[in-house]
């Protein structure tokens, strides 16, 4: 099953959905305070510990490859755009500086922070909680639902992809053999059925929603009951305070590449 949500009764899953959404946004603001990797690394480590505590470790391992790609791509690209004083290598108009490399590394770590926080959020938040939380924050329900659709459809697409791969393997398709171009071409027998089935499902989804009364001009009620607790308020205060401290540090010049 391709859902990240870990259904267990746990501190984070008991938080009000608005706390989880605001908490995610506020924590995502933290990595923006620094652009030096040495300052971002402890923040990243803290988020990793949070992920372990939240039971998101297994989910993180599934997407760990994405985090590595973020760092590699940042390290390769940013030195060409971010210039500093300490030149490490120069060739014609292009030069790679120590500051550029550090900045590239910092951006990679920052992206990985977002990835970890996103996975933690998905691990402790059902898609209904996300949709309901957005509604409480004033987003119209139909828009909240549409935003949640990505979470609904991703597991469905992934499941269909797995079935298609199995079906095509049974017809002799070997996705692991051949050079890069050959392997890309071999994915066509997987991509076409997945797209076809996915589009069919998406088409059916709109009809299904209609059949279940979605979009009726009736004030919507909620099966789930969310309560604001003291822990919600305290946690938000802690996160805001953390952000404030980090921003003050950033403004004071800590963790900023010269």
């Amino acid at each position, binding site marked *: 099953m391709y859902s990240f949500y870990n259904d267990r009764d746990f501190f984070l899953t008991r938080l009000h959905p608005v706390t989880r959404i605001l908490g995610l946004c506020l924590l995502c603001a933290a990595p923006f305070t620094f652009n030096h990797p040495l300052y971002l690394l402890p923040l990243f480590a803290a988020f990793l510990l949070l992920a372990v505590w939240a039971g998101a470790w297994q989910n993180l391992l599934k997407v760990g490859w994405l985090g590595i790609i973020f760092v590699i791509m940042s390290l390769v690209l940013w030195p060409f755009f971010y210039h500093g004083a300490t030149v490490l290598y120069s060739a014609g108009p292009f030069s790679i500086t120590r500051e550029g490399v550090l900045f590239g590394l910092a951006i990679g770590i920052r992206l990985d922070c977002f990835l970890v926080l996103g996975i933690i959020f998905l691990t402790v938040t059902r898609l209904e909680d996300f949709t309901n939380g957005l509604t409480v924050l004033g987003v119209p329900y139909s828009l909240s639902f549409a935003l949640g659709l990505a979470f609904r459809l991703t597991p469905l697409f992934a499941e269909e992809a797995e079935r298609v791969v199995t079906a095509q393997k049974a017809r*002799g398709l070997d996705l692991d053999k051949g050079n890069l171009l050959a392997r890309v071409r071999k994915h066509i027998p997987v991509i076409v059925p997945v797209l076809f089935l996915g589009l069919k499902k998406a088409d059916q989804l709109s009809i299904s929603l209609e059949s279940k009364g979605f*979009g009726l001009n009736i004030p919507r009620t909620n099966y789930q009951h969310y309560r604001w607790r003291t822990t919600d308020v305290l946690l938000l205060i802690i996160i805001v305070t953390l952000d404030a401290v980090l921003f003050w540090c950033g403004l004071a010049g800590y963790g900023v590449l010269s």
Partner: protein
Amino acid sequence: MAVVQTKKLCFKYKRQSQPALNGIDCSVEQGECVALIGHTGAGKSTFLQCLSGIIPKFYSGDLSGEIIVFDGMSDSKNAGVRTRIGHLFQDFEAQLFSSTVALEVAFPLENRGVPRSEMHDIVERSLGQVNLAEFHQRNPHELSGGQKQRVSIASILGMSPDLLLLDEPTTDLDPVGKRDVVQVLQVLKNEGKTILLVDQETDGLLDVDRICVFWQGQMIAEGRPREVLSNIELLAKAGVKPPELLELCARKGITPGGSSLADVHQTIREHGFTINQQKKEQIVAISTETANQLDPLLEVSHVSFAYSQAEPVLKDISLSFCPAEFVAILGANGSGKTTLVKQMNKLLQPSSGSVTFHGLDVSNQPQSTIGKKIGFVFQNPDHMIFSATVSDEIAFGPRNYGFSASEIEQSVKNALELVHLTGREKDDPFSLTKGDRQKVAVASVLACRPEIVILDEPTTGLDYPEQIKMMALLKTLVRSGHTVIFITHSVWLAAAYSSRIILMEKGRVIADGPPRKVLFDFETLARTSLEPTPIIRFAAQSGVPLLTVDELDRCLTNNMSGENT
């Protein structure tokens, strides 16, 4: 009071040349339970979609005629009508999108503004009605097909609609599940709900109020169930399988007093019919003679399997399969049937035990070797189809297995002939009917010249004539020396076509033998939530191991004439 009224209702989908509905006049009174039957493409689902307003909102085309539902059109502007209609689609999986079963049932209630305090009771009640009371927190997408179908039904029941439109509500359910749904519908009928129900299986329709027969977009007959279902010629034209007992009586030219087993027995006796023992012995002897005496080519030895840390899905299974066997695997939803067959061609590998093919361990052989010899046809042909033409689709497997160009051409030609699709080489497979797409899927496996062909529910979604064609095709393969292993929920198909039946329950094989032995062991069959067909029950009560209407028809003779009439 008429809840549904249509007058000269016509609808033609935008890109189709023929109308899907052609002048339907229909009236359904409050509290009626009406069944719609007919071949695939006859217009039954389209009719339901017109009633619920899905057509023309989501499907463009030419709609004409009159539709009145609860005295108002059922379009999106009329919320009052929309809230009174519950529509279950044929593709029930498309109606599931919540993260838990309880939330799935609650979703329509939330949309209707039902207070929370009432919602919990409604959810409990609806799940209880479909025997899913303990599945509240389960993710619907992790359930079996039959369980998913029950969740969809529960979400419709929870809406407490006055008009239920149910499009094949029991396709993926085992017989016990089907019986539960029938009971629920009976309760709803007693509460005054109006039900329109599309179903391919007529044995369960004897208690509805009325049956409407659709054929090529027209309603060609309607009437009481016994009237309609005894008209074998009408059902044959409409592409519907008649109820077995009524068919038997019709072949004998007699009309039973009722539709129950006891009624039919009595009618048969009253007309002087008895079993001709000599003919019975001949029939039974033929099936015994054809029992396979050859050495096994595929052996499953003490195989157990579990997905990661979960409870084992297969527990110590040992089976062997010989050439030219026609094997049906039956069992309740979740009994391990699909997991078992996937072990056979290395799509899954056993946690313990082994699978050997011609004496060689399958796990030590490359997928490309095994896949060529043991073909697998999946339940949904859309999981395989991707090419622009039928011939390219069929050639895909042989190309992967390294066939030469001339071998590919010949294999494709032979496969097309076997599935009766010669002349359709250039057709777009996506434009074919479900039945033809299924044939393309079978052909694409046959083109690789496998020795064994495994099919997972090959007749799901096919109407009666298409099911017969598919099974006849598989029979041809067996006659030409292939071993065919198919998973099915359909006891009548297994009885009519297979030479061997394997019953599974909770990961174990609980019976394995010829149909005349396995299907007459009612106690063991009941453990798999399957039920003998009405004709098998009749035969058992008559003390003869006969499996089909044909067999009984041949054996029942009239004492007075002394000949089979």
